[in-house]
């Protein structure tokens, strides 16, 4: 590294829950502490703050990413922590424009965890990896005393090969570009909320956890050079990802709220609890910004691909209001859609 590291701008005296929630506080921690101390603009990784780092090593154009998975309950309708751990990293690579090649994983386990629970998750990871076409090539395990962790945390780190013809950057986004989503939003977060059993709500809902690689490849086949930016809206939801985009590119994301696909059950749960589907986590969807002349073709390719039938055109890039996301209605009303501070909380008022 050349020269001294940049100054730390993160002033908060201690770490709070909000710093891990994926919204504004997380961003402050990353931008204010990690980036100044760790990021070297002259280093091998050219892009920063995207879902994956880009590495050019002896002519190989690679993407590298890591993620830590913490979820309660461990098993829920539609999946489990093991599946999330594999699909999450596969998806981060896919939306960075890379084909996943290999994953390593580390387990932080609580003493007293039943072997059958661990086995179930490892089995789930194996199946998810096979479905996604990625190899799990190594890992590590640590066990801590009972009470020092919550049963099981899994970290996965993945490496992939850049897809030819796909060059993603927020800087390439222009007014007039279209925003697509691969399917209905909010399924995962609401499923988890209901699975915790604290709110006494029942619905036929499943987590949407899956690899989005085939859908990304479907778009890349018809519109590779026209894809400007992609992201998988996990914690913090579509609202957070689109705000990140708006902040990075400086333009405005205009969202047609009525066009965002939301399942009835997700909508019902959100109305009852006073939640906004745009802030709810997804584990099997992605957002893509496509140049206008290829947007239709990209949407058709998504809808024709298995699992993409509910893909939709949900927005457009504009100039104003700058660096913000604006949701509009057909009667001319609009509202800013902001990132949340921490996790969305049910309300009664």
């Amino acid at each position: 590294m050349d020269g001294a590291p940049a100054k730390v701008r993160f002033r908060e005296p201690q770490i709070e829950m909000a710093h891990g929630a994926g919204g504004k506080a997380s961003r402050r921690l990353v931008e204010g502490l990690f980036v100044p101390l760790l990021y070297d603009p002259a280093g091998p990784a050219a892009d920063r703050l995207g879902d994956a780092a880009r590495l050019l090593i002896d002519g190989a154009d690679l993407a590298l990413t890591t993620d830590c998975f913490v979820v309660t309950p461990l098993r829920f309708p539609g999946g489990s922590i093991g599946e999330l751990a594999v699909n999450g990293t596969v998806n981060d690579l896919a939306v960075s424009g890379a084909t996943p090649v290999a994953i390593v994983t580390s387990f932080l386990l609580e003493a007293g965890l039943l072997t059958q629970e661990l086995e179930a998750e490892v089995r789930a990871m194996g199946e998810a990896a096979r479905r996604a076409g990625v190899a799990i090539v190594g890992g590590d395990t640590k066990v801590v005393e009972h009470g020092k962790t919550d049963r099981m945390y899994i970290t996965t780190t993945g490496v992939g090969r850049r897809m030819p013809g796909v060059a993603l950057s927020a800087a390439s986004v222009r007014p007039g570009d279209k925003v697509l989503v691969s399917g209905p939003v909010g399924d995962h977060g609401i499923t988890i909320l209901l699975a915790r059993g604290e709110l006494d709500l029942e619905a036929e809902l499943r987590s949407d956890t899956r690899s989005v690689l085939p859908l990304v490849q479907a778009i890349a086949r018809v519109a590779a050079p026209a894809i400007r930016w992609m992201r998988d809206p996990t914690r913090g939801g579509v609202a957070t990802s689109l705000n990140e985009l708006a902040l990075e590119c400086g333009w405005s994301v205009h969202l047609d709220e009525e066009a965002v696909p939301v399942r009835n059950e997700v909508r019902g749960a959100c109305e009852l609890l006073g939640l906004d589907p745009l802030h709810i986590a997804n584990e099997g969807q992605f957002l893509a910004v496509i140049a206008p002349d290829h947007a239709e073709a990209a949407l058709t390719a998504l809808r024709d691909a298995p699992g993409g039938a509910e893909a939709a055109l949900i927005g457009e890039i504009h100039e104003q209001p700058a660096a913000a996301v604006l949701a509009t209605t057909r009667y001319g009303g609009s509202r800013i859609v902001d990132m949340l501070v921490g996790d969305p909380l049910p309300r009664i008022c």
Partner: protein
Amino acid sequence: MCLAIPGKIVELVADPPLGVVEVTGVRRRVDLGLLQDDPPQVGDWVLIHVGFAMSRISEREAEDQMRTLRILGEDQAAMDEVRGYQS
């Protein structure tokens, strides 16, 4: 205050007076204790706030209201037309 959502009673439980209410596919047990002067039946719509039914929803009033609103613009359009003839 106050977030209250319409839901349809799909099942009744006797004591304490509870109902299972459905809101587009989501079900929750709701306390019907505040509506015991005129207990609702399966199929009735109620307004739910903090897990309690606050009021019955009158389908007729809702329809009347929508009808009033829908003719709002039409009345005006008719008036404008008449004025157009008179000017």
